[in-house]
C-alpha cells in the first residue's frame, strides 16, 4: 500500500493516538489530547485521513437531553488505515530509536 496522505509529524501523532485503541471510537477533543496537539489543529488531518479512506466517522447515537451534552462525531481507523498506521508509526519509531553502536576493541581507549 502506498502513502495515501502526506505524512507529517502531526499526522503521525494523530495516527499514534488512534492506534492506541484501534477498535475504539475517538472524538476530536480526545484525539487532540492524546496526540498532544492543539485542539482544532487536528481537523485538517482527520479530514485528509477520512477522504483517503484511512478513517471513518459517524455521529454518536445519544439522546442529547438525557446525556446533557451535544452528540460527538466519532472517528475510527478503517482496516486500510490500521495497516497504514501500524506500518508508518512502526517505521517512525524504528527511525527515532537510538542506534546501538557497538564499540570496537580499539575505540574504547580513544
Amino acid at each position: 500500500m502506498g502513502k495515501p496522505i502526506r505524512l507529517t509529524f502531526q499526522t503521525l501523532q494523530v495516527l499514534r493516538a488512534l492506534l492506541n485503541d484501534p477498535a475504539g471510537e475517538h472524538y476530536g477533543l480526545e484525539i487532540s489530547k492524546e496526540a498532544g496537539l492543539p485542539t482544532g489543529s487536528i481537523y485538517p488531518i482527520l479530514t485528509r485521513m477520512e477522504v483517503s479512506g484511512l478513517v471513518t466517522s459517524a455521529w454518536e447515537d445519544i439522546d442529547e437531553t438525557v446525556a446533557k451534552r451535544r452528540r460527538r462525531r466519532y472517528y475510527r481507523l478503517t482496516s486500510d488505515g490500521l495497516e497504514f498506521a501500524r506500518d508508518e508509526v512502526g517505521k517512525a519509531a524504528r527511525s527515532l530509536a537510538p542506534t546501538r553502536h557497538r564499540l570496537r576493541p580499539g575505540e574504547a581507549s580513544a
Partner: protein
Amino acid sequence: MSTVLIVLLFLLNTLLMPLVVELIKERAVGLAQRVIRFAVRLLPRAHRDRYSEEWTAELDEMERQNVSQLVSSLWILLSAPSMGRVLRVQDRRQLLVKGGHERLTGGVKVVRKILITSLVGGMTYYVTDLSNQPQIWAITFAVFIGGISLITQFISDFEKRLENVEEKQAAQLTENLTEIRLLIKEEFAGTNDFMERFRTAEVSALQPLSLDHADRPGKQTPPDAEVSHTPTT
C-alpha cells in the same frame, strides 16, 4: 521624566491588564462561537452543517475554559481554508465518478435499445419473408414494428423517470415539512417563561383573573367596588 513615564506605564499596566483579561474571559465564549460560524463558511456548503455541529460540540465540552475555547476556535479558523480545499477536491472527484457512472449507464441503455429494436425488426422481416411477401413489404413491416418497439421503450423510460422525480419530490416535501415542524417546535420551546405561563393559564380550566386580582392575591375586591383615585397627601 523617563522614570515618571515608566511608573505611569507600570501603574496603567497593573490597573488595566486585569480588566482586559477579565473582559476577554467574559467575551471569549461569544467570540469563539462567532469564529466558528465564520470558519464554517470557508467550507463547501455540503459540509457546513456537519462541521458546525462537530466544532460547537467540541467547544461545549470545554466548559469553563473560556480562553481555551477562543484559542481552539482560532485554530479551527486557521485550519478551515485547507480543509475546504481538501473537501472541494473530494467533492469534485465524487462528482466526476458519479458523472462517469451516469454516462456509462446511459450508454448501456442506448445499446440495449438498439439491440432490442434490431432484434424485433429482424424477426419481423424474417416472419414476413417466410410468408412470401414482396421484399418491399417485408422491409416496411420490419421498420414499422422496429420503430414501434423503439417508441415503446422511450415511453417506458420516460414513465420511469417521471415516477422517480415524483417520488423524490414527495420525499423532499415530507422532509421539509418535518424540518418546518421541528423548527416551529424549537422556536416555541425557546420562548420565555412568561409565554409558557401565559400558555398554561390559557389552557387551564380555571376562569382567568383580572390583572388587579392577580397582582394582589390576598386582597379580594368586590366586582362592583369603585376604585378611588384620590391622591394621598
